[in-house]
């Protein structure tokens, strides 16, 4: 054996370091123990965070990836360790989050024998990964990791899983790392076609009521500046999807609000009145379109999109502009006229005023005694930093927090959009905070969802990550209860929760905690929380049976968006 030979496990760790990974989230076990042993030697170069569950590890990696723009990394053992990653993989796949997940696997001679903790993780994870591979030979480890990082981050990002057998980890091999720069079956750069830009610009320049919808593609393509420049010049009103929030400052004069089931009134309703619809880095999720047969039928659609499979998948477009929206938006900005649409903008304003009077004011400045979720977010807005990151779980609190949080900077929004994974927020907030301890990370979570991953309070305790956890406690699986109220005759089947003393739980983890039940105490509590040095847990007891509005009920058209 040559002196230069090192263990496969060391190759794993050194490959991660070569990819500039700074932190990984994980959980040990038999089949990944050689890698854990190697981590012990490199802990000054690569930080490892021990979560309390593998689902926590992958959501933390997602939170980290979403705020940093880097590839999130997590590791787990074979069998149950690997299967615990699946929810996070599915979440990252549908929300295009770049991840590299490394799982240990039984030794290669045991593959297919139902060995202890053997699971076909490559098979199970196939529909939930952008790419996956099993590595059975030490000499294939480095190239698989290099390829994995390249695939995760390039093109439309997504999760990659690399399953490494135990013998590959313990055998010795040479380490010469070379980064992957591309390969023949995978095209990442699509040059924008000039004719598509010309056709799009022609439609836009002729339009009387153009309307732009932007999604997370703007953030993933780092096209925030280009979007702003395009809007500044074109004067076109613009609305955001759930994951698009943060791509454009909500203070921008063209910004008209949010799309989707619980988005704003005007942006949904006026979708069916525009004449040209410009969709940028968004994929027409059914939560955005409502009934497709009655979605923007009057409009000519221009779709700016990187992923060719998204073109005409849901909404047929007049002009498809393939390529990174960073490129296409700047070319389009050059090609369109300087313009303004005062009458059209006034329509948005008129409807916004209606929403403000019937929904927003009662949410933010309630006159009834019970606290609303909206006023909590409103108070957070008063004290938060401009670049504060909001991480939310799934449910009513998610929609309310998204509706009222004042997004000003890119990558300040972390939530499970496409999959709607309860239990996402707490570990994702931890991951987001691990990227930068100096940033404010506010985790808004429901009493149902927090109990799905509440064990990660232990990770917060151990890392001292100064996450500010705001539990909006309505003693209900609120979003499901709202549907039961509206669509199932108020038959509250298994949605009410008998909850534990959350403050005691937080305190048991040595996290400073407070519970607010009265309006008069709210403002001070939020101020205390945000200036607190270290993690903080704030439980706010809110009205039990409040509903989220506006709402586009399932099967309804965007123009049937309801205010009550």
């Amino acid at each position, binding site marked *: 054996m040559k002196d230069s030979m090192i263990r496969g496990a060391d190759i794993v760790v050194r490959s991660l370091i070569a990819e500039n990974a700074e932190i990984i989230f994980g959980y040990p076990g038999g089949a990944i123990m050689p890698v854990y042993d190697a981590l012990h030697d490199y802990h000054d170069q690569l930080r490892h965070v021990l979560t309390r569950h593998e689902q926590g590890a992958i959501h933390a990696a997602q939170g980290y990836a979403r705020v940093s723009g880097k590839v999130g990394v997590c590791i787990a053992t074979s069998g149950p360790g690997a299967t615990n990653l699946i929810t996070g993989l599915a979440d990252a796949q549908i929300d295009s989050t770049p991840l590299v997940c490394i799982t240990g696997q039984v030794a290669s001679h045991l593959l297919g024998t139902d060995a202890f903790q053997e699971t076909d993780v490559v098979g199970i994870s196939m529909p939930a990964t952008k790419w996956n591979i*099993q590595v059975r030979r030490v000499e294939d480890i480095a190239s698989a990791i290099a390829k994995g990082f390249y695939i995760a981050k390039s093109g439309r990002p997504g999760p990659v899983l690399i399953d490494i057998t135990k013998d590959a980890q313990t055998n010795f091999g040479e380490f010469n790392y070379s980064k992957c720069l591309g390969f023949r079956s995978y095209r990442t750069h699509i040059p924008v076609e000039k004719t598509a830009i010309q056709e799009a610009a022609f439609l836009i320049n002729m339009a009387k009521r153009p309307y732009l919808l932007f999604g997370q593609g703007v953030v993933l393509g780092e096209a925030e500046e280009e979007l702003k420049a395009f809007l500044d010049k074109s004067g076109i009103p613009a609305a955001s999807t759930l994951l698009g929030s943060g791509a454009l400052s909500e203070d921008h004069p063209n910004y008209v609000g949010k799309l989707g089931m619980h988005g704003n009134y005007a942006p949904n309703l006026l979708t069916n009145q525009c004449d040209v619809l410009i969709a940028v880095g968004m994929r027409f999720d059914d939560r955005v379109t409502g009934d497709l047969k009655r979605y923007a039928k009057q409009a000519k659609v221009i779709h700016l999109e990187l992923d*060719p*499979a998204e073109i005409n*998948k849901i909404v047929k477009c007049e002009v498809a502009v393939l390529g990174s929206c960073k490129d296409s938006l700047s070319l389009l900005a050059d090609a369109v006229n300087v313009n303004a649409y005062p009458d059209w903008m006034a329509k948005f304003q008129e409807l916004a005023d209606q929403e403000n009077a019937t929904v927003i004011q009662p949410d933010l400045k309630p006159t009834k005694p019970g606290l609303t979720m909206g006023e909590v977010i409103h108070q957070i807005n008063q004290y938060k930093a401009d670049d504060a990151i909001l991480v939310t779980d799934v449910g009513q609190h998610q929609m309310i927090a998204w509706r009222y949080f004042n997004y000003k900077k890119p990558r300040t929004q972390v939530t499970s959009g496409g999959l709607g994974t309860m239990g996402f927020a707490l570990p994702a907030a931890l991951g987001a905070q691990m990227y930068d301890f100096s940033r404010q990370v506010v985790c808004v979570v429901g009493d149902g969802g927090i109990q799905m991953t509440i064990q990660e309070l232990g990770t917060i305790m151990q890392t001292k990550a100064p996450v500010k956890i705001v539990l909006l406690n309505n003693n209900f699986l609120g979003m499901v209860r709202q549907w039961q109220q509206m669509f199932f005759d108020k038959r509250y089947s298994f949605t009410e929760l008998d909850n534990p003393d959350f403050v005691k739980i937080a305190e048991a983890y040595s996290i400073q905690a407070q519970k607010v039940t009265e309006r008069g105490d709210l403002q001070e509590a939020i101020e205390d929380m945000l200036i607190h040095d270290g993690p903080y847990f704030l439980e706010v007891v809110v009205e039990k049976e409040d509903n989220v509005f506006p709402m586009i009920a399932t099967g309804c058209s965007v123009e049937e968006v309801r205010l009550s």
Partner: protein
Amino acid sequence: MKRYTIFVITENFIGILNRITIIFTRRGINIDALTASESRLEGIHRITIEVTASEDTVIQLVNQIEKIIDVIKAFYHEDESVVYQEIALYKIPVSRLDGGLEKIIRQHNAKIIAAEPDFVVLELTGHKEQTQELLEILKGYGLLEFARSGRVAVAKRMLTIDSFVK
């Protein structure tokens, strides 16, 4: 609904067939037939999939297949623009071999490719309609076993796979 042939040109990567077929199963679409083979270029495989669906659906399928990292190119054709063949084998008991059957074999251009003491094996190569027609007839002759291959096909247009592999 129409019959389409989807061609996939791909790296020879473990699991690639799985990744392709889950695109169909996820949408509840049945694969009528599938064949996989090496291509003219080393390391590159071609997979031919026959499917009955609307053209819109086929376009979605092709887009999703092409999105698979190790797939080099995917495209589809209607039956009219491909040259294709299928092979069918029929196992018949010797006891039923008579003048009538001999005539049928001749008419259909089938071949006897194996003769055993108890049975003979007939082979017919052609389109599904042809092999199906013979199948229906042979059912009346005590057919013991029948097997039909998936479609092997080449496109009529002059593009070669080298143009996708750069």
